């Protein structure tokens, strides 16, 4: 009479059926299914999650897809199914109850060919484009725009296991951001150049333009009516010792900021990203202030004589950076930048030596993240690095001093000093540029490494921030490889310590809705994962 348990009894039988034919069918069908998970963001806040699943091949060049939409609490709220040629979901945004999805669409990139000849023969029929898809909250695809793209397929392919397939992609992947209450901005780069497009919430293309720059990396931000593109041009500046030999080093500066208006009314604006003396800036944060909603940049001021000499502990102790900066962007004109520079290289910052050593902790800091609080201060954070003498190395060199070559050999390869990362530093720069040490958060220390070794290879610390606009509280999440530390910036204390490994449970945290973290717990014994969204 009620829902019968018998139905439930029948269900496990389907799943646990041991006939080989059925297992084979299930396996082969499931091999054709693949999923991508993306966060859905609006105005930089996480509002939900989206699972994009390729279900099956529908015909010779198209597939059946399903989009499953979840709210910020991981509750399923709906799904949409459609057919299209090969798609890779790149980015998702949300505004005015419309989801905007940016894909790379291709009838070629997913295909396998039996030989190079067949591969090359198929190239003229290749159709590659960026697909911008707009879906309403009642599950309708209200618009889909395809923008043809140029991808060099001739040169970029791989050959393996008797198949030839393309190993090509967009020069720069699709970025999608909402323009609050107006629509969406989309950026991508192909072999013909970089493109910026603006759509309204109905999916109509409002305008499109080429972004003329030779940059390698791009970051897009929208704020009010404005769209900003931060680009970085890379070039080699040297090498650093790394496991197995040496690693190439790219420059840290050479950022350019471009500004556009949503309505395309004004020309592109170029913002000068240098300090008042023309020194380049290393940007470690480009984001919107959560109080004003306006963008800001934060980072380090590069010493021009030390460009390329930043990656190892030894180099960090020789002041590759002259100080830190915050640049507030209030509009779309070059004059709409308000710059705050704090220098220690000139000895003007108490408690910090000219080489950037913080007296309070007797350490140098490799700043890797920055964030704003609710009072307009900018915080900088990163692992502290200490440098110590390798007495063994010095003793060896003294003992062998009469022999000239061995000491050079010992000193050149080993060096006389060693470095390690220790605790996590938090410093505050106020609106006037005054710097203060907020805290040194106890974290897992790395082991000592040669001073010439790249810090990146032994630094385990990573950071991100969570804020709660109701309680006006900022949290810094520090992952030191062993534990996840939740630091309350307001009260200056660690409010939670979550071990990564606790018995059979492995825990990780990810960004979630405002004021929350997504906690993932993998139980090794049960081979299951549990997710929850927890408030800080």
């Amino acid at each position, binding site marked *: *009479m*009620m*829902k*019968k*348990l*018998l*139905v439930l*009894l*029948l269900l496990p*039988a*389907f799943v*646990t*059926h*041991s*006939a080989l*034919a*059925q297992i*084979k*069918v*299930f396996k*082969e*069908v499931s091999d054709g*299914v693949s999923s991508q998970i993306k966060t*859905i963001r609006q*105005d930089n*806040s*996480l*509002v*939900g999650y989206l699972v994009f699943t390729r*279900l*099956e*091949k*529908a015909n010779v060049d198209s597939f*059946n897809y399903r989009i499953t*939409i*979840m*709210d*910020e*609490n991981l*509750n399923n*709220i*709906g799904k*949409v199914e459609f057919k299209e040629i090969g798609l890779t979901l790149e980015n998702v945004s*949300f505004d005015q*109850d419309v989801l905007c999805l940016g894909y790379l669409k291709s009838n070629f990139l997913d295909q396998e060919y039996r030989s190079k000849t067949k591969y090359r023969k198929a190239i003229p029929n290749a159709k590659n484009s960026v697909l911008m898809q707009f879906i309403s*909250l*009642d*599950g309708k695809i209200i618009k889909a725009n395809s923008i043809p793209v140029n991808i060099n397929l001739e040169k970029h392919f791989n050959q393996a296991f008797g198949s030839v397939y393309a190993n090509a992609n967009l020069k720069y992947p699709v970025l999608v951001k909402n323009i609050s209450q107006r629509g969406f901005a989309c950026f991508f780069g192909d072999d013909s150049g970089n493109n910026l497009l603006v759509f309204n919430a109905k999916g109509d293309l409002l305008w499109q333009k080429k972004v003329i720059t030779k940059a390698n990396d791009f970051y897009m931000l929208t704020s009010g009516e404005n769209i900003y593109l931060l680009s970085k041009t890379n070039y080699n500046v040297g090498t650093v010792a790394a496991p197995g030999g040496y690693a190439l080093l790219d420059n840290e500066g050479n950022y350019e900021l471009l500004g556009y208006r949503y309505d395309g009314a004004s020309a592109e604006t170029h913002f000068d990203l240098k300090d008042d003396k023309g020194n380049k800036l290393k940007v470690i944060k480009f984001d919107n202030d959560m109080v004003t909603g306006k963008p800001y940049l934060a980072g380090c001021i590069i010493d021009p004589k030390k460009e390329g000499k930043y990656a190892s502990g030894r180099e960090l102790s020789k002041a590759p950076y002259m100080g830190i900066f915050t640049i507030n962007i209030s509009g779309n004109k070059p004059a709409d930048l308000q710059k705050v520079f704090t220098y220690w290289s000139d000895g003007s910052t108490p408690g910090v030596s000219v080489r950037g050593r913080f007296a309070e902790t007797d350490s140098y800091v490799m700043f890797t993240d920055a964030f704003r609080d609710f009072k307009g201060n900018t915080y900088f954070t990163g692992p502290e690095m200490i440098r110590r003498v390798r007495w063994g190395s010095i003793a060896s060199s003294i003992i062998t001093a009469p022999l000239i070559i061995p000491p050079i050999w010992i000193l050149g390869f080993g060096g006389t000093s060693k470095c390690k990362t220790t605790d996590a530093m938090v410093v505050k720069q106020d609106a006037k540029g005054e710097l203060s040490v907020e805290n040194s958060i106890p974290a897992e220390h790395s082991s000592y490494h040669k001073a010439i070794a790249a810090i990146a290879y032994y630094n385990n610390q990573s950071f991100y921030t969570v804020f709660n606009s*109701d*309680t006006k509280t900022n949290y810094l999440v520090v992952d030191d490889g062993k534990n996840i530390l939740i630091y309350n910036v307001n009260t200056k204390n660690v409010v*939670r310590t*979550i071990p990564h490994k606790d018995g059979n449970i492995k*825990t990780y945290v990810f960004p979630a*809705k*405002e004021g929350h973290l997504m*906690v993932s717990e993998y139980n090794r014994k049960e081979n299951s994962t549990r997710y*929850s*969204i*927890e*408030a800080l």
Partner: protein
Amino acid sequence: MALFKRLVIISCIILSFNGVKAQTRSPYTYQQLSKSFYVKQKDSLKKAWLCPNIYSNKATQKKYKELWDSRTDFITGAIETQNYVYEPELYNYINDIIKQLARANPKEIPVLPLLLIDRSSSPNAYAIGGNVVAVNLGLIYFAKSREEIALAIAHELSHNILNHADNAMKGQAEWLTSAEYKKSLDNVLNSKYERLTRLKKVFEGYTFTRSKHQRYHELDADSLAVILLKRSRIGFDAGFFMRLDSADIQYKKPLKKPLNDYFAAYKLPVEAMWTQKRTKGLSSRNYNFKDTSAVEDSLKTHPDCIERYKKTLALSDKNITLTPIPASIREKTTKMLIWNIYINMDLTACLYRILQEKDKGTTDVWYDFMVYNVYAGLCYNDKELHRFNAIGITPKEYISKDYYQLQNMLEQMPATSLQQYFTGLQNADFWKKAPDDEKALKNIMYTLASETNDSDKSKWSASDDFIKNNSTSMYREFAEIFKKK
């Protein structure tokens, strides 16, 4: 003098009765949970439920045995995981209905079935063949009369009498080993495109047929149930089927007072902002995707309630006199149900049910004790970063406005306020009347929820202590969770 003596004796008896009552007021003992209580029945089922050899085709027989064994595993597994409980008064009340049906229908029910009281809050009952029938606490809670419960039981017994479960297993075994099924799988493998769609169609086709038969079985069971009831002189009203439509709306029913009023009684302030969803997320938007969770009509396993009502309306008893369910049964069922929701750590549902009982006017301090347990559970889960799962966030379209506000409150209360609630309840007046085992449970809760002294060793020690001194208490089930493994 003799009268005086009698009065003294009577007073002693009353006092001692109260004393005994004060020791524990939980409706059942730990040993009455199924893992202990039904251990013999579990072993008997395993031995007695041998799969008959009815197919000459080895593959079909093998499949039939797999399905048969999975049924056995289901019931024995459920017994093992404490899904059932034996509370004598409740058990006898339900069993008396079965006995009454059996007495009046000896041909159909020659042997009394094994009755299991399932602790689930879902208003449901089920029969799985093998002369076993289970009745959920949720059904007893939902029912308004003995006659409603009797209809549900008669319906389930009808499924057993008509061999529906066994026939379903046979049907499935035959289909899964049929040439037609194998051919359909081969067709899926041989197709280059739309393999998933084809595979789904294979199972949907089978499910469509099965569902159609299932619906006929439900109507057959309805018809036979009415006959069983009539012979037993138990009243029948087709209107009972219409009530079933509202069976799943427990959490859509509103509360009688604002949330604040319930917690004011404990002197616990509620901030308005806790109850308001302040999210920017999609949960607050007006989404309206086509509800694909609803089962298509062709795939429904049960006919719509209106259809069942119409088919049996003519058989309704005129001027039926309904027998109310005794208050003691209701009280026990409610407490057992709320405790089971709690032990499954579904804290919003648990707290909402408590508030609904308060709306009915209960002054039983047991519910205050459970409010304490809910907050202790929340504090503990918040520390463990499990608060979200313990609350059980339900989308707003499935719950009342009051449930939604309560859920928001439990989600958005700062950890400091949670601790404050917990500390406040720790010293509340109701503890004066609490029996020993409830006070002992408080020690475990304190260890779990307190911010200091919450090491594994402390938990083990608190748990061992409780089990040693309250081995028969219903609440031992909670202590067992934190025992050293």
